[in-house]
């Protein structure tokens, strides 16, 4: 038996590939339907090349050896001899499953950077705006600004426009000139030109103009301040514009969800863009025997890379052979993913956006001022001590939103770059998802 956790592109591809030789598979996911966050599925999936998603969905639902366990949230994984016991919550009960092999495809979530007003109603991540639209058909507002960095802003802006929102601004923080360093990646992935053309047409159709080197530097009461920024993300003074909008959807790339692999003890490393990810080999094997990891948790790369990583993980976990062409496809997609990291970097200048009163940790309401004081007055030198002094990262989200920002702010204040060890330690969360004390205690032996 193989347990696949996560039913986004990587997990679905893994389950489908592993089922080809009849292996028994349990596919666990927290949503009612398969698809994950990117293909958030309400019967059909809209967007670029969504046919791939539909194909995969039908293969999964018709495969007899795949059991889909939906609306199940995994809160912990334990090792019992040679087996992994996956403990999950479903319908107000705790259940568990055991298997010899695990494939983790836990995906990623949007990265937020703090600016004055980022925590106010009306400010959200592009992923949240898209989730509301695709997941429940709700449009987040009439007038929307989409901003941040990365190609994901395009499907979000055009998707919202197709559903009737007025996109009053689409702002990319980086310059397109960066792509000149990565032309080889585009040439290796010519399909990307078609994707760009597809979104270019949609932007034209909805009269959305994409502006570069700009960021939302503050937001309050229906007005967003849009500033010109330099390549390090420092705001160029005197060049700003007020845009009236109901919503600002601001996202700064993605952070992988490392919680479950961390619980199992899979070795992590720091990617070229400073993101903590899992180290895997050419067949997506993690450092822990019988645990494979695929998709965003092994490096942010988008759905295309996730699909091939998932397929390779599924084949490897079910002891099927992996053709050289699949291995080459993975390398080709990885080259493109690396080009994305080079083309959409996050400049340290964002650390100058928050004011002293700006919230850095939303769950515990910790401000920039408190973090600064923990460093200058109390001697915090890393995110762990800053967190112990201020409670930043100790709330409901367990630092998923703020812990990387806190590390980098503390690094900036102490003039010490954040060490790999610190980046890796901050993803350690033994309770992957909240569980009631009652259920927890009832499960004791």
């Amino acid at each position, binding site marked *: 038996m193989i347990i696949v956790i996560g039913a986004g592109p990587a997990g679905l591809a893994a389950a489908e590939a592993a089922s080809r030789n009849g292996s028994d598979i349990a596919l666990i996911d927290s949503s009612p339907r398969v698809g994950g966050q990117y293909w958030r599925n309400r019967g059909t999936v809209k967007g670029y090349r969504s046919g791939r998603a539909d194909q995969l969905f039908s293969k999964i639902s018709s495969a007899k050896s795949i059991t889909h366990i939906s609306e199940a949230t995994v809160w912990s994984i334990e090792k019992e001899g040679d087996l992994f016991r996956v403990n999950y919550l479903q319908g107000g009960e705790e259940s568990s499953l055991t298997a010899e092999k695990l494939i983790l495809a836990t995906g990623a979530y949007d990265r937020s950077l703090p600016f004055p007003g980022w925590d106010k109603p009306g400010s959200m991540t592009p992923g949240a705006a898209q989730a509301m639209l695709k997941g429940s058909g709700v449009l987040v507002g009439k007038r929307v600004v989409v901003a941040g960095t990365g190609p994901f802003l395009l499907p979000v802006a055009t998707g919202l426009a197709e559903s009737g929102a007025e996109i009053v601004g689409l702002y990319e923080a980086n310059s397109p000139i960066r792509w000149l360093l990565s032309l080889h990646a585009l040439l290796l992935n010519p399909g990307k030109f078609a994707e760009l053309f597809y979104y270019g047409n949609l932007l034209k159709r909805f009269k959305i103009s994409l502006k570069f080197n700009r960021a939302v530097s503050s937001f309050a009461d229906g007005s967003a301040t849009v500033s010109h920024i330099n390549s390090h993300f420092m705001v160029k003074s005197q060049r700003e514009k007020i845009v009236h909008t109901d919503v600002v959807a601001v996202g700064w790339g993605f952070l992988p969800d490392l919680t479950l692999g961390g619980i199992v003890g899979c070795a992590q490393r720091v990617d070229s863009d400073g993101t903590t990810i899992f180290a895997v080999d050419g067949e997506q094997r993690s450092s822990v025997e019988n645990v494979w990891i695929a998709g965003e948790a092994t490096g942010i790369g988008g759905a295309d890379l996730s699909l091939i990583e998932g397929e390779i993980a599924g084949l490897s976990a079910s002891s099927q052979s992996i053709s050289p062409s699949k291995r080459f496809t993975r390398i080709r997609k990885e080259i493109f993913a690396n080009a994305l990291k080079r083309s959409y970097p996050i400049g340290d200048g964002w650390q100058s956006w928050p004011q002293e009163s700006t919230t850095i940790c939303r769950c515990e309401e910790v401000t920039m001022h408190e973090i600064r004081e923990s460093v200058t007055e109390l*001697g915090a030198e890393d995110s*762990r001590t800053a967190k112990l*002094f201020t409670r930043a990262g100790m709330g409901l989200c367990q630092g998923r939103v703020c812990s990387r920002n806190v590390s980098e702010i503390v690094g900036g204040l102490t003039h010490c770059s954040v060490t790999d060890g610190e980046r890796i330690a901050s993803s350690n969360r*033994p*309770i992957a998802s909240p569980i*009631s*004390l009652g259920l*927890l205690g009832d499960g004791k032996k």
Partner: protein
Amino acid sequence: MQNPDAIVIGAGIVGASVALSLTNAGFKVLVIDRGAVSSGTTGAGEGNILVSDKDPGPELTLALRSRDLWFEMQEDVGDAFELEAKGGVVVARNDDGPLMKLSSEQSLHGVTIQKLDHASLHELEPYLDQRYQSGVFYPQDAQCQPMLAAAHVIRAVVRRGGAFISQAKVTKIHVREGAVTGIETSQGSFSAPIIVNATGTWAGELAQMAGSHLPIAPRKGFILVTEPTKKYVFHKVYDSDYVANVASSDADLQTSTVVEGTRAGTILIGASRERVGFDGSMNYEILRRLAAQATSLFPILRDVQLLRAYRGFRPYAPDHLPVIGEDATVKGLWHSAGHEGAGIGLAPGSAALITDAILGREQFMDPSPFSPQRFLSMGIEKVLS
């Protein structure tokens, strides 16, 4: 600071307290740590300042004085570490004989107690399971935020002429003619005639560098942290089994739950003990037992969500007493370590014992039960077992 009067190794609450008390006695003190402030056991503690869990004896005497010194330390450096005389409530479900006997003895040794019948117990803790028949209230039990306390105390030391160097790993302790002369660290060499070892779980390793030895080992403990809730728990509440557990040297896993609310609104559930080496892995079975015990004390907590769990390592000596005093063989090397789960509470009292001994002042108690000398009479095999 190349030539301080004293070097304190370890910037947890134990080291910070010694540094402050020496500074206040006129010493120029250098504090160093292999990490940052509070990066060891202090950073994984609940902040317990307890007298209720101690049997009459030297540790209780130390705890009582130390508890008062906590409030003096707050007056000295400022109200910035959430020190609160919250009070402890120890409850008994069935046979309250052992608890009542212990508390009577404690009261003869200076502990303030108030015996509770069913009605007064449930008045103090209205959400406690009705099956608990009786208990004892200990108003002296207190609580602080230990990481903040260590940070503020070290800040005061630095403001009063001391120095603090972080990320400095000790690589060598120089001993000449049986006395310490200085240390080498990853951040440079320093000489001083007095070196205080306040390195908690690493204290044995440090003693070894000076050619001495201390039998201090780590004991793992877990703490559960819930989501913020309405105030359901008003004191530190624990089952009377806890007291028996603290004094146990049984190597098997034992759990006994202490439940308390914090200012942030979260509920902390702690006090499991497991004697292991430095194995950092999470043990979900312990979390389940802690949760089961907490909900049996407070059934209303069944629906409260657990958000976090963390583990720390408590340094302990074979006889479960702290090690406070000058090294048995190396002059000028002082130890304040091995406080197990009571390091926060016992820190300022231990510091006072050391400072008074160094100055030759009269001490508030006979410190010989804590003396590092006591391990000399034990065979080395026994020490290491």
